[in-house]
């Protein structure tokens, strides 16, 4: 299991547009992934889970990956969030 923190930069947080990009990226990852803001756990492979979590701009989230390819998946997800998920 590996994890790393990252700050969400999207001006409107992880709303539908960046969330659907996140889901498309995460579903290609083999490992199990959880994104947590300390209060709630979100499954980024589920767009509904992402959208209903309402993660805001500036929120620090921890990405946790477990399983086959976990290190590569962690990098992929962290970089995607850091680069703004298509919005920046």
């Amino acid at each position, binding site marked *: *299991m590996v994890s790393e923190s990252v700050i969400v930069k999207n001006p409107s*947080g992880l709303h539908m*547009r960046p969330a659907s990009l996140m889901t*498309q990226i995460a579903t290609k990852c083999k490992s199990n992934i959880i994104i947590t803001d300390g209060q709630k756990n979100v499954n980024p492979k589920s767009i509904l*889970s992402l959208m209903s979590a309402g993660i805001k701009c500036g929120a620090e989230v921890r990405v946790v990956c*477990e399983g086959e390819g976990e290190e590569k998946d962690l990098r992929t997800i962290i970089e995607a969030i850091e680069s703004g998920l298509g919005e920046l």
Partner: protein
Amino acid sequence: MSVLDVLDRRVVDLNMKVKVKDEAIRHLSCLLKEAGYIEDVEEFVKDIYERENEGITGIGEHIAIPHGKSESVRNIGIAVGKLDHMIEWESLDNKPVDLIFLFAVSKNQYDSSHLKLLGDLAGRLGRNNTIKKLREMNDFEDLLEAFGEDTQSIVEDMEILSDEIEIRYE
């Protein structure tokens, strides 16, 4: 503001007879115009397509959530359309769509109430049985019932969504 506060029987058609995505969008937009949510159908439809170009609105499970953020919108609204057959729609799971929630949102950039509403809809859709109930609904009351229940159960079901994965971290 929750989905239950916004749903309006005047803009719900559970028997939509359209053949393609464009017809569905226009049909629901006309309902929104007739009920006073938007001023101009053409302008609103143009704004819907602008958003369509930015990214996929088919979220999977044969459901689409297109939205029009538009100067033409007077009040925030959600038009609901259900078809008895599937139509092509760009989706995250590449499946076609038979249930559409079309959001009408004002262009005020400081108004993020539609994001909360989308989040609320997503949370309710993610609950056990909601999608099943939506598939089986016959009238507006069934629609309300499918989305009903208090928010505490939404929070609990959020935990269930992540429970599939047993990860404990320090």
